[in-house]
């Protein structure tokens, strides 16, 4: 075997697979009886190459949550490999099934148009202090779009943005917000559209660098992962540091809340816990505000929300989400705190599932909103 596939097999250490099956044993999709097995996929692609029917289908089923990587004793980067295969299959016109008819990916591609002049900050309220130039920039992400797109879930997603500004103001920071910010490109990158991802990256880097900010804070686990891990390129340092809000607040020494401490559990976003190794910081902020009750899988072992790239949502993904809600309910807490708007949207959707209704009674709240509620 040679060509691009051989290069990918080496780069992601696929040939080092020991066939132990820990990946499949821990994979949430495999656990809900999806005919999905990271171990089998690696074997099939080595034996049959890109033409394997199994690989062509399953490469789009993987959520790239990274739990397999966490478990692999051999250091195989399976989710990275799957991600890297997607542009290859996309060129062969073997695409994945985009959730919501592809509308969200279209919204992201539209944002790659340099001629666009968006109104993405209408959620800011009088009293919230922001600036056009400064040291700290709040990269607010796609909150405005998601709020409208998922209106029927009655989630306060733009409230996450207001909460972050409020918290930063309390610390004496008037963050820069960019009217010209674009989607970070996470979902396009994980759907294999590297061309549009690069366009978004270029526009965002230009805008961030133009603001003079040296610190970029996000409340979205995905934005933080993308800016921190995918935006830097060899020979082109970012010129600023990227923090997820939880990490920034712990480093800034934010104190604890003083109100009552309701029982709550924390949904670790895969892009935060596994892709950035951040699970302590949100807990440091949570433990003084809630009585933290961990789910069966937490921290780097957490199950993800099922569909981190608006890709391939189906009845198996729904089962992953329902299993996750079951774990949440079993903690006995009354709140599920998240640190990624997408976790919140997906868990809210699963709560509306017409089947069994685990955890429907639990409140979903973003970490930023919980902290902003401190008096």
């Amino acid at each position: 075997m040679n060509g691009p596939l051989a290069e990918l097999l080496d780069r992601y250490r696929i040939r080092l697979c020991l066939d132990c099956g820990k990946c499949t044993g821990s994979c949430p999709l495999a656990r809900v009886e999806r005919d999905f097995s990271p171990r089998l996929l690696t074997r099939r692609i080595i034996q049959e190459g890109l033409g394997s029917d199994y690989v062509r289908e399953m490469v789009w089923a993987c959520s790239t949550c990274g739990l397999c990587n966490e478990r692999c004793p051999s250091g195989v980067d399976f989710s990275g490999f799957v991600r890297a295969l997607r542009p290859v299959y996309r060129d062969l016109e073997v695409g994945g099934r985009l959730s919501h008819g592809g509308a969200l990916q279209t919204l992201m591609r539209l944002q790659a148009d340099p001629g666009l002049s968006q109104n993405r900050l209408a959620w800011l309220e009088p009293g919230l202090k922001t600036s056009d130039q400064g040291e700290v920039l709040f990269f607010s992400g796609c909150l405005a779009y998601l709020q409208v797109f998922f209106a029927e879930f009655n989630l306060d997603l733009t409230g996450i943005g207001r909460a972050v500004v409020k918290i930063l103001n309390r610390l004496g920071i008037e963050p820069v917000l960019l009217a010209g910010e674009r989607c970070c490109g996470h979902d396009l990158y994980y759907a294999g559209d590297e061309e549009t991802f690069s366009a978004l990256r270029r526009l965002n880097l230009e805008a961030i660098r133009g603001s003079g900010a040296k610190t970029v804070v996000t409340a979205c686990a995905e934005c933080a992962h993308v800016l921190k891990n995918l935006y830097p390129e060899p020979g082109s340092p970012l010129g600023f540091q990227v923090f997820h809000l939880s990490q920034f607040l712990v480093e800034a020494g934010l104190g604890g809340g003083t109100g009552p401490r309701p029982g709550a559990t924390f949904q670790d976003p895969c892009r935060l816990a596994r892709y950035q190794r951040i699970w302590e910081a949100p807990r440091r902020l949570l433990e003084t505000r809630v009585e933290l009750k961990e789910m069966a899988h937490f921290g780097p072992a957490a199950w993800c929300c099922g569909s981190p790239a608006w890709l391939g949502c189906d009845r198996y993904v729904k089962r992953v989400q329902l299993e996750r809600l079951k774990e949440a309910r079993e903690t006995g807490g009354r709140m599920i705190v998240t640190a990624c708007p997408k976790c919140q949207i997906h868990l809210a959707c699963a709560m509306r599932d017409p089947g069994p209704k685990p955890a429907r009674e639990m409140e979903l709240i973003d970490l930023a909103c919980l902290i902003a509620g401190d008096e």
Partner: protein
Amino acid sequence: MPSWADGAERPRGVLVLLCNWEPYKAFQNLIRSGRALPPGFVPLTLPCSGRLDPALALAGLERGAEGIIVFGCREGACRHGPGPASAREEVERLEKLLDILGLGRERLRKVELGGEEADRLLAEARAFAGRLEELGSSPLARKEGSSRERSLG
């Protein structure tokens, strides 16, 4: 039908979404009377205006549509029941998305129409063409097709 192949002289494109029932009947009546939609208006039928989906509308904009006009049945005339209400909800969602994108909700127009109203269909389409003329080119449609997603086949 104008050619949408990539080129400097791209004609103005307007996506016309017609419910397959009353509005499509009006459209057929219009064609039968020897008239046509304004140049660049591309008609597509939907099984029901309630099937209006953000994915479809946004895909139209991405492929160069300057605007989208949706013709649906009136409340009570829907063959399926909840179509008009569902269409209104989707139009509202799309209007907000267009505002955030900075394209402006004026680029979307929703009209409820009966099958006998071919004249009104044409008048509404012409009025919309005039309105788009006033708005000027959409920032998305202005430049030449640059990716495979942009260029309506």
